[in-house]
């Protein structure tokens, strides 16, 4: 009796235990889990032991200590007395700054290059191809070095700055451009701008829904745009004093005063990232446009749509569906590539994190923080992309 129950345990469904797929799969899973966890445990215990030997406690409380190192540029006010945590945020904002500006400019450059490459004009399309093929085949870091060390560092000294229209000046200290300075009425005017944006959005959605429901032409885009322009312009004259005064750079004894300063580090980073990513975006956009079937153009033309309407209503919606996912991953690449800033001295989150490691000696916690930030950026972007993908899929038949 006991033997037969034992047999039943080992020969379930007539298959010996060591050949039962279910059992084998469980063994494989448990084995791999044990292996990975053992690895992690080995790593973590070593780190903890090392930290103990050096007398460093495992916590993030050091982020409240004074940083004590300067940061060359910052979006928010910063000085050395601020904490490590604050310095970290300064670096993060610098990363976001170069990424956001880079994404916008690279998209513009990419679209121009893609359209140029598809142009029927042989010369124009050749020029675009040469740009794309050269840039895509040279490492980004070499390009960054070329721009920063070869160009922005070799500019004339401040006293002999190159004057550009604007007025703006290009020198070793960077680019000084004429900019605006908010005056006392600035915030009052900003209310007008805010109201204009909200009103334009509401009008756009309301009018386009009305158009869809009733079939009457309501010009949602034109109306929203008109509101967006008219309200701020009216506000400009209504608030009395000009809300923005011009802020022109003037050459002082040692440097320029006033204006908006673009540091050579930021400029080098931006130009390198934009030129590089622009070439990749160009290929993404080109593939998207080519993916729209030729019959779609012809059918739309046959229905009597104008060239502009064909692009806006027929081609673009279809090609965007192909373009957006790889485009977003190019944006992510740009954000991640901005970590190369450490090599040309732009104070991005990686650069600041590295400095904090040197100052505080806490390599692992700071490192986890840096990784967490990049992972968050990637994660947020991919969530947005998934939502977008679901939306365009709903539009499909």
């Amino acid at each position: 009796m006991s033997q037969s129950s034992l047999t039943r345990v080992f020969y379930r469904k007539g298959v010996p235990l060591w050949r039962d797929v279910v059992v084998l799969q469980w063994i494989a899973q448990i084995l791999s889990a044990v292996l990975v966890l053992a690895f992690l445990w080995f790593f973590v215990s070593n780190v903890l032991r090392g930290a103990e030997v050096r007398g460093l406690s495992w916590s993030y409380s050091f982020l409240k200590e004074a940083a004590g190192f300067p940061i060359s540029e910052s979006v928010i006010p910063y000085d050395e007395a601020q904490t490590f945590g604050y310095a970290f945020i300064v670096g993060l904002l610098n990363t976001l700054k170069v990424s956001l500006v880079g994404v916008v400019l690279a998209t513009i450059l990419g679209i121009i290059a893609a359209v140029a490459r598809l142009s029927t004009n042989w010369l124009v399309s050749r020029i675009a191809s040469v740009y794309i093929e050269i840039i895509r085949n040279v490492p980004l870091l070499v390009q960054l070095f070329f721009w920063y060390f070869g160009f922005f560092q070799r500019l004339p000294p401040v006293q002999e700055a190159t004057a550009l229209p604007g007025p703006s000046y290009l020198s070793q200290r960077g680019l000084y451009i004429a900019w605006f300075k908010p005056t006392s009425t600035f915030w009052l005017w900003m209310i007008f701008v805010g109201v204009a944006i909200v009103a334009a959005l509401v009008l756009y959605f309301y009018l386009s829904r009305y158009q869809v429901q009733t079939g009457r032409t309501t010009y949602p885009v034109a109306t929203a745009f008109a509101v967006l322009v008219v309200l701020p312009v009216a506000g400009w004259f209504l608030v009395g004093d000009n809300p923005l005064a011009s802020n022109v750079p003037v050459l002082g004894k040692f440097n320029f005063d006033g204006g908006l300063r673009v540091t050579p580090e930021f400029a080098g980073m931006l130009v390198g990232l934009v030129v590089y990513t622009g070439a990749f975006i160009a290929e993404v956009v080109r593939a998207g446009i080519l993916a729209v079937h030729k019959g779609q153009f012809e059918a739309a033309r046959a229905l009597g749509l104008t060239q502009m309407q064909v692009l806006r209503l027929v081609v673009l919606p279809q090609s965007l569906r192909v373009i957006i996912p790889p485009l977003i991953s190019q944006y992510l690449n740009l954000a991640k590539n901005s970590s190369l800033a450490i090599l040309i001295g732009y104070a991005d989150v990686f650069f600041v994190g590295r400095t904090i490691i040197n100052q505080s000696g806490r390599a692992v916690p700071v490192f986890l923080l840096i990784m967490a930030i990049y992972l968050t950026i990637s994660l947020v972007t991919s969530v947005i992309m998934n939502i977008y993908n679901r939306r365009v899929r709903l539009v499909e038949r």
Partner: protein
Amino acid sequence: MSAQIKSSAPPAALGPLQWLKKNLFSTWFNTILTLISLGVIYFALKGILHWVFVTANWDPVAQSLKKFAVGLYPVEEIWRIGTILAMVSTLAGVSWGVWRGTVRTFALALAAGFIVIAVLPFDLYPPNGDPLDLLVRVGFIVLPVLIALGFLLGWKVPIKGSLVLLLWLLSFALAMVLLSGFRDSELLPRVSTNDWSGLLLTFLLALIGIVASFPIGVALALGRQSRLPVVKIFCTLFIEMVRGVPLVTILFMASIILPLFLPEEIRIDRVLRAMIGMTLFAAAYMAENVRGGLQAIPRGQYEAAQAVGLTGFQTTAFIVLPQALRAVIPAIVGQFIALFMDTTLAIIVGLLELLAIGKAVLQSNQAWLLRDKEVYLFIAVLFWIFTYAMSYASHRLETALGVGER
């Protein structure tokens, strides 16, 4: 009937004037574009040519060719690199003889490159007039001869393709042994990895990254597709975490955090640490490429394999993977190119790859300090040649294997 055939005949080739009219001056808008482009090209070319031939000072490049090529590798051991080149040349010739096709272009390009190096009007082996300079030049003349001999061998003697592949792998291992040498050896003294530098290190980082990341990437992709939830979760986590952060952080992790992760007794070499970081990074991307191919395999293939009685392993190895990999060859080659270009990031953890050597060359001579443009442009051109060759190869491979035709 005959009229129909006549009208469907291809139009006669355009004359040069017609071509100009069709492609450059078809509308007034196109004409303006053409004129603007011509202006841009004229001024750009004029500026560039003037800079290249008049303003630029190419001394830092011309006088440091050896540094760019092999960096700090000890002078008396350079014969080892020559031996490796000879090995590679012969094998390239044999491959040409056995496979023909695209390989021919590469063998010929390699030979042409060697000949160009041999007749370069600069010092290959400073200081000036060193008799070794002549020796190096003769060496570079011999290499094309080896390619030709290899070709004859591969052409006349029936050699199996798989054998040639095996020889390539063997030569890779042999090259590594040659480069590093042995401790306490008279003939082949140890060359510290700290001395591996220049283009040599760039190639090594890329090659090892490519060779090592491929199997890891395939394994990760299979793991991510696995039916076992635990395996799947681990693989997915690894892939997504690595892909979510920049390579710089991975390299940094490998060079600074990895030693903290290991007990005091275990010390991993600096170059090796960078290689590990790069390989893991490339493997995560490789896994996603391979997964794309795996997902493209129809279910019927699995079912058919099961029906003929193949085991799970056999199904994967002989049915699924060959098809999946073939489908993603362009993506994989693109990945290899990216990895090759990413080797420049090793500069961050202090390795002396090509770009770092460029920096070192600039600082080695007071007069060259301001010659960044020349040096970085030279490096850019070098990279461009290699990456362009790789993407050309991938195009040819695609057509040869008929990717995207079925």
